[in-house]
C-alpha cells in the first residue's frame, strides 16, 4: 500500500545503501510514523521514541512483520536528559519530529526548546552525524512582505514571535536554540519547515482557512493560497533532508506545488458531505476588527483575550506565495501527492 507512493525516494535510498541507525522522535505521530515506514522500507534500522505504550502498540501494528526486526521502540520523553542519551546511542541520523503543538507558552518552551537542546547535546555527545529538526513555515518573518510576495528560506525568523501564538513563539525559539547549540557543539543540522500538514486522519481544515466561532466557520479571505503540504510529501522531504549529502546547515521549506485556497478547502468539505456553516470575511475587514479587539483588550485590562491582532492577521492570512524551490533543487524532492488526491485522502 505504501510502496507505490514513494518509488523515487526508495530508489535513491537503495542506491545510497542507506542502512544506518536512525532515531525518530514522536515516532507514533501523524507525520513521524510515515518517516519511520520510509526509513524501514529503505533498509535503515529505526529507533522510534514514543511517550506511551499505547502509541507504541499502534505504531507496531502498522509495521509489517518482516520489517519489525529493524524497528526498536523506546518509550520515553526527550525532555528528560537520561532518555535523550538512551535513544541517540550509536545512531547516525536523528529526525526530531516530536513537538508539543498546543497549550500555554511555558510547557511549549519546555518541550519544544529545552527538549530540543537536550536532544542536541545528547546527539553531539553520541557522535551523531546529522540531526534534522522539524520546524514550521510559520516561523518565517512575513510581516514586512507585500501582498503576493514570495515566502522562502531567505526570509529571517519572525522578529517579534511573542506577538504570535504560543506554538509559533516556541518554534522560533526552537530554531534559534537549535542553530546556536549545533554550531557550538559542531553537530551538523538540517532544518525542515513544513507548511500546514494535512492528510488522512487529520483532515484539511486549519486556522489558515479561518476561525470557528460558535459552530460557524469564519473563512478569512478565502482566495489566498494556503501553505499546505500533504503528509506523504512532507515525510518524503524529511527523509531526504536526513540522507542527502552536503546539505548540513541548510533550511528547507516544504509546501506542495499546487496550494489550496480557503474556499477550495470549504468546498471540499461540502462535497464530502460535511455540514459546514460558513461566513467569508475579507482580510481587510478582519484586520480592522482585530485592531479593535487589540484596543479593547488593552483598555479592558485583559477582560477579553487578544485572540486577534493586526500582527496575527498579517501573519496568518496576508496573501503570499510560498516557494518550495530549494527543496526541489537541492534535495530532489517532489510533491508527489497532488492537491486533488491529497484533499480527497484527508476525508478518509
Amino acid at each position, binding site marked *: 500500500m505504501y510502496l507505490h507512493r514513494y518509488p523515487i525516494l526508495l530508489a535513491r535510498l537503495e542506491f545510497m545503501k542507506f542502512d544506518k541507525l536512525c532515531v525518530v522522535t514522536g515516532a507514533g505521530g501523524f507525520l513521524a510514523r510515515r518517516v519511520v515506514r520510509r526509513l524501514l522500507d529503505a533498509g535503515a534500522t529505526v529507533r522510534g521514541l514514543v511517550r506511551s505504550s499505547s502509541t507504541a502498540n499502534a505504531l507496531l501494528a502498522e509495521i509489517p512483520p518482516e520489517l519489525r526486526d529493524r524497528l526498536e521502540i523506546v*518509550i520515553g*520523553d526527550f525532555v528528560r536528559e537520561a532518555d535523550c542519551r538512551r535513544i541517540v546511542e550509536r545512531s547516525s541520523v536523528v529526525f526530531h519530529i516530536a513537538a508539543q503543538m498546543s497549550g500555554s507558552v*511555558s510547557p511549549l518552551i519546555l518541550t519544544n526548546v*529545552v527538549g530540543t537542546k537536550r536532544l542536541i547535546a545528547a546527539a553531539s555527545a553520541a557522535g551523531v552525524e546529522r540531526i534534522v529538526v522539524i520546524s514550521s513555515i510559520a516561523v518565517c518573518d512575513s510581516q514586512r512582505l507585500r501582498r503576493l510576495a514570495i515566502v522562502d528560506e531567505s526570509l529571517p525568523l519572525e522578529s517579534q514571535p511573542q506577538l504570535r501564538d504560543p506554538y509559533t513563539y516556541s518554534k522560533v525559539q526552537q530554531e534559534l536554540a537549535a542553530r546556536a547549540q549545533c554550531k557550538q557543539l559542531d553537530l551538523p543540522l538540517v532544518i525542515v519547515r513544513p507548511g500546514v500538514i494535512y492528510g488522512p486522519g487529520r483532515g484539511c481544515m486549519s486556522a489558515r482557512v479561518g476561525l470557528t466561532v460558535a459552530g460557524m466557520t469564519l473563512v478569512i479571505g478565502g482566495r489566498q493560497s494556503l501553505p499546505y503540504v500533504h503528509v506523504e510529501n512532507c515525510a518524503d522531504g524529511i527523509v531526504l533532508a536526513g540522507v542527502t549529502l552536503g546539505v548540513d546547515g541548510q533550511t528547507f521549506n516544504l509546501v506542495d506545488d499546487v496550494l489550496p485556497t480557503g474556499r477550495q478547502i470549504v468546498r471540499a468539505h461540502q462535497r464530502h458531505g460535511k455540514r459546514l456553516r460558513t461566513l467569508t470575511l475579507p482580510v481587510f475587514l478582519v484586520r480592522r476588527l482585530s485592531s479593535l479587539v487589540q484596543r479593547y483588550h488593552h483598555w479592558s*485590562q485583559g*477582560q477579553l483575550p487578544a485572540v486577534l491582532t493586526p500582527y496575527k492577521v498579517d501573519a496568518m492570512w496576508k496573501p503570499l506565495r510560498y516557494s518550495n524551490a530549494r527543496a526541489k533543487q537541492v534535495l530532489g524532492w517532489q510533491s508527489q501527492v497532488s492537491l486533488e488526491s491529497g484533499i480527497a485522502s484527508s476525508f478518509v
Partner: protein
Amino acid sequence: MSQSVNSKATTSKVAILGCGQIADAHLQELRYVPGVQVVAVCDQLQELADQAARRFDVPGAFTDLERMLTETRPDAVHVTTPPHTHASLACQLLNQGVNVYVEKPFTVDVAEADEVLSAARRNGKLVCVGHDHLFDPVWLRLQTLVTTGQLGEIVHVDSVMGYNLNGPFGKIMFNDPHHWLHRLPGGLFHNNISHAIYKITPFLSDELPRIHATTDRPTVGHPPTELRVMLQGESVTANIRFSSRARPVQRLATLYGTKASVEVDLEARTIRWCRSAKLPGALGKLDVPWQQLREAAGNLRRNTWDFLRCRQHYFAGMRELFTRFYAAIRAEQEPPIPYEEIRRVTAWMDEIFRQYKFTEIDVPASIPDLVGQA
C-alpha cells in the same frame, strides 16, 4: 480603563520565582495592581525565565535566586514553583527579609506550613497563599450576605471542585509519569483541593473536624481522579466533591443557613437563592420558576453591567488578593489571609491524604521501556 496600570509612586518591587503556567496569570494580573512593579523573573531553566521576561516586559531574567535577590532587591517574591519546593524557598526568602506570596497548595504538609509561618513571624515579613477564590467578586458578595445575617447561622456547606483532565495541565500531567504532581502525597488532589477546602474553613471553625475521605478505585496506571470528603465539625458539617469526570466542570459552593440557603457559582459568577414557593399547592410550581426567572434576569443584568465596566476578568480574585497583600505590606498590617486559616487548610489536607493513601499503583503509565527490539 488601562490608565490605572501601576502608578509609579510608592512602588513595591516584585519578582516571580518559577516561570511555569501559573506564573503567566501572576504576571498578567500584577500589571494592574496599583503600586507594584515586576522587576525580575527567575527559573532554573533560562529558556523559561527568558520567555516570561520577554512576553511581559520584565527587565530581569535570572536562573539563580541569590543573584536575583542581590541584583534586584525585591520587596516581595511570588513563589510559583511546584508545591514540594514551596516551603524551603519561602523560608529562604523570608529569612532574607522578603515578603512572600506562595501559590496554592501552601506547602506539602502542616509541618512545612508551620516552618514557613514561623519564619514569617520571626522575620516580621508577610506571607500570603493563593486562596484567590475568596477574593472573587461573587465570593465577596456572599461574605456580605453572611456577615449581614441574611443566611442566618450556617449549618452546612457543599463545596464542589471540577477539574478538566483534558485541559493543558491535565494532559501534561497524565502523559508524564515523572511529573512532580505524582510525587505529592495527594497526587492530583493535592494540587487542587485547597480551592474547595478554603471555601469551607470560614464557616467551620473547628481546628480539625472529623473527616472521612474516599476516592474512586485506582487501577494500575490510572490514579484516582474522584475524591469525596465528609467533614463533621462541632456545629457545622460540610461535603467536598472533587470530580474530573462530571460535566460541566464546576466551581460551586452551596451554603445552607438557618434563614436561607444560596448556591455560589464561581464559573458563572452568580449567586442563586434556594427558593421555596410562596403560593400554595399547584400554584407553587409556577411561583418558584417565576422567582428563579427573575433572579436569573437580575444575575444577567449584574454580570452585563460588570462586563461593561470591565470587571469580569477571569482572575479577578487573584488581582484583588494581590492588591490587598501589597496594601498590607505597605501599611504594615495583617495579611489578607490569616495564618491560622492557612494552617487549618493544610492540616485538613494532611488528614484527607492520610485517609486516602497515595500508592505506587497511582502513578500513571508504568510501562516497560522497550517494546520492540532491534
